[in-house]
């Protein structure tokens, strides 16, 4: 199962410290893991939410660091794609996977798959025994839709102002964090539904 999906910055942000990342969208699937473990029984719901937000921030920071190290190592120049060039931006995107050890920050070991498209990162945190090939494909698909539907290559802030579209997209392609084996026909059918939603 996928535990969470995030969209966050992987470039320096002036208002933040050097290694930090601004989370633009985050969706955690399933119940709060603190509720069911013995570890955080004494927390109230407000503290639990705070803890969850902090965990997401940790993941974003770790991925940010991984992205910048990977880009530094490959020495590739970041291309600036403009709206309309979503497919190209996706093709040029860096990708990788970060191993999140048990406890740092989730109670069990997780794998954080990431796609770095220019200044933003798209991250999928899933359980390590998950089918990572399928997860990779799903992440690419999600990213493509986000880039296109929310015009993310431009200067707008639709990712913040239209987050309900991402929610709808996730509810079809990644329902409750479940990765789906979709051949092109099934995918087309779901994407038609998503497009119908976006058109409203």
């Amino acid at each position, binding site marked *: 199962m996928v535990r969470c999906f995030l969209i966050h910055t992987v470039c320096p942000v002036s208002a933040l410290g050097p290694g930090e990342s601004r989370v633009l969208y985050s969706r*955690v699937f399933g119940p709060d893991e603190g509720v069911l473990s013995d570890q955080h029984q004494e927390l109230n719901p407000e503290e639990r939410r705070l803890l969850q937000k902090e965990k997401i921030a940790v993941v974003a920071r770790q991925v940010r660091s991984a992205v910048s190290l990977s880009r530094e190592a490959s020495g590739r120049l970041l291309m600036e794609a403009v709206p309309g060039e979503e497919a190209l931006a996706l093709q040029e995107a860096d990708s990788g996977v970060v191993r999140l050890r048990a406890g740092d920050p989730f109670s069990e070991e997780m794998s954080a798959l990431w796609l770095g498209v220019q200044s933003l990162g798209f991250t999928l945190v899933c359980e390590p025994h998950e089918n990572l090939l399928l997860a990779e494909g799903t992440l690419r698909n999600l990213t493509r839709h986000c880039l296109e539907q929310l015009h993310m290559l431009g200067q707008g802030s639709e990712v913040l102002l*239209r987050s309900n579209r991402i929610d709808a997209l996730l509810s079809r392609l990644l329902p409750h964090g479940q990765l*789906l*084996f979709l*051949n092109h026909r099934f995918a087309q059918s779901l994407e038609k539904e998503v497009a119908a939603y976006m058109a409203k």
Partner: protein
Amino acid sequence: MYSHGSESLIKQAREIQDSELQKFYGRLVKLLQGKELSHETVDSLQRLHLILSATKYTRTLPPELQKRLLSLLSSPVEQLQVLSSAVLRETLPLSGQEVNYSQESIGQLNSHAAALLLSQAGSRADLSSLCNQLLRSLESRQSEGPAHSLTHTLPILNTILTHSPECLTEDHVTLLSKKLVDWLRYASITQGGGASSGGFFTGPRSRQPVPIAELDGTVSGDFFTVLCVGQGFTDDQWMNVYSFSMLRHWLLTYHSVCNGNTTADTDDRSEVDGSVVSMVSATSSSSRLLPPKERLREKAFQYCQRLIEQSDRKAHKRTDTDLQKACLVEAVCILDCVCVEDISLVYRTFPCIKALFGRLSSDLSFARVMLPIAQFYLNHGEMAAVECESVWKLVFGRFPAELFNDHFLAHELLRFLRMNLESLRLRVPQYTHSFPNLLKLLAWESPAVVDDFVDLLPSLVTAGTAVELLHTLLDLPCLSATLILQLRSTCLPISEPGGRGLLSLDAFRSPSFRGLFLFLLRTEAGAGDTIDRLSTLHELLAEAADWPRVVQCAQTVPVLLHIFFNTVITVADEKLLAHLILVMLERSSLLLNIPKYIKEIHRVFSCHLLRLCKLHPSLVVDQSHELLEFAGATANVYSKEEIYTHVVWVLGEYLSVSCDSRCSVRLITSCFEALEAVLFEITSSAPTPGAVCPAPRVVTTLMSALAKLASRSHDLIPRVSLFLSKLRTVTRGGSVTWCSDEEDLVAIVTRGEELWSLLKAPGVAQSVLTPPPHVTTPQWHQDTNVAMPLRLRALTNLTHSQ
């Protein structure tokens, strides 16, 4: 992509004033009271979501607003469902309004409302109730209603299974297993959605049901799977997709479901059933007689075999080809899982897996599919007496050597190793010799995989390969540079005017240096510890010292060296440790010249040299010749200050009869003379202009070492005392050429005076300078004088009631 606009939006959302916020809430409540859905409503809800999610501190909504939002969850307009669910997830449920997870209507919820429920579940009991309701709804909606509204049921059940498997009862498992069998194996084989075989003209004739097709366009001849296509899909075909998507997880976890008493019964039952199954599974036609869980295993087996066969077809679309690969991975994993549960299936499965391996092993683009196959061989190969050599050759040979730059493969390969360490050590003897290949993964993408190597390295340290491993670790940056050159060499044309990295690339391609690089690129250990012309190699790669990948790699080496040394002392005998000390001394000047790298390595060496000698003091006498050679070279004072200091220290500390009976007076004297010569040299002449002064610590360590040696061989005391008094005289005259800092000079002189006064009482000097072990590590209970009071005290404490 990320603009100032976004940044300021977030700032605004966080800093919104309370009065403005309350006004906003009021407006929103009014909007929601209206009957119509307007753009303003949606925009306002979206704004509310941004305000709530932009901060990590929770804001509470006014009860009126919250109630209205709750009612929106069941709105017919999906946007309102989505937004209200998103908003409510960012805030806390109203106190006193907690959801009753056992109510009937829960089974009827839409996906977004269900998501809210899941995220707000406060306990296992909540999840259990939710689970109950969902399964009840699955059961009752046998053939009515659109299954689309059912499709979120399986993912939610899978989520509950992930977080809290005990929420499902044995009955639930049976029910769901039966349903999964139906959807997986008996879904329609005709296209759904009113598909017609005709084009524009639709008449009664063309309304005959069209069969589903395979990915290469041919008509499908067998049951429906995720790799089948059609113009439209029926509900049970959708459920087929959802079922397969959760199948592996279900098979892995359903036996951890417990239900109090019935677990004991099911254990007994399955033992009996097991023997029945092993007879029955040979003839799959009688599978109807199997209990639900076993029947599901059988159907899963058939589904996976079909997927494997379907993956051989040439799909028309690229996304479908990718899906075929993912399906292969999943199918092999599921087959592995069912074989673990029911060993008799292994004989039926192995031919299929072997054939798949044969089909894909030569195609590196299927490398990621090979890993689950390797897991299958590891788990069942021995039992089925199948030869596994070719699998390991691929996994430990070709993959790291040729696909080191595929991060996902590296991640999965290392995970495979981590998860199966015990098995690999038993069944794959070449594992411990494969480190030159495995380390290529680290040399390429160090930050991403160093964590895995921290876990794996101890298993690669063996007495037989320790020396070679140490050399390999020290030359990891060279390996990194070589891999870069290897890739460049295949990509770039033979002559590139004015290109970067020209010298090293030329060297890489030149036949006279080929051997050096080939040694680094070797695939297994055992050919030799290292090469003679290491310094040549380092010179050739000098320009690589600022390549980012090489620098990142160099930063991981110290950590790995620490792990190496910590592990090697558990497996090495004294002879090997002596050899390692020699390697350290030798390699301290043979390292790729990356800024800070050499210094870091020296620091690691110093730390472990000290540890090794502390553990086995006789090593110092054993290796005294080499250590003296090192300590006697004045140049080392300047170029390898850290190691030099420690070598001098261990010589002073452990070159004594009490550490090793082979230590003679002659040895002590020759050591003394060597150190004395160096000390004279560095404290007499000024360093050449531009060079640094010797570090004060070196001077004091030399003085202390000389004093210690003299305290063991009293003839030497006058020589030391003479030097120390001369030192005092010289420094009284003011500053000296070999020490620039006044404070340091004072420290050196003070030390000198202390040592001088100590040596005036030779008998005492030895015990003060090198205290015997019973002083430094007292074990008072063994001392005849102190033991008695201790024993009495202990007995008193025990016998007196508290």
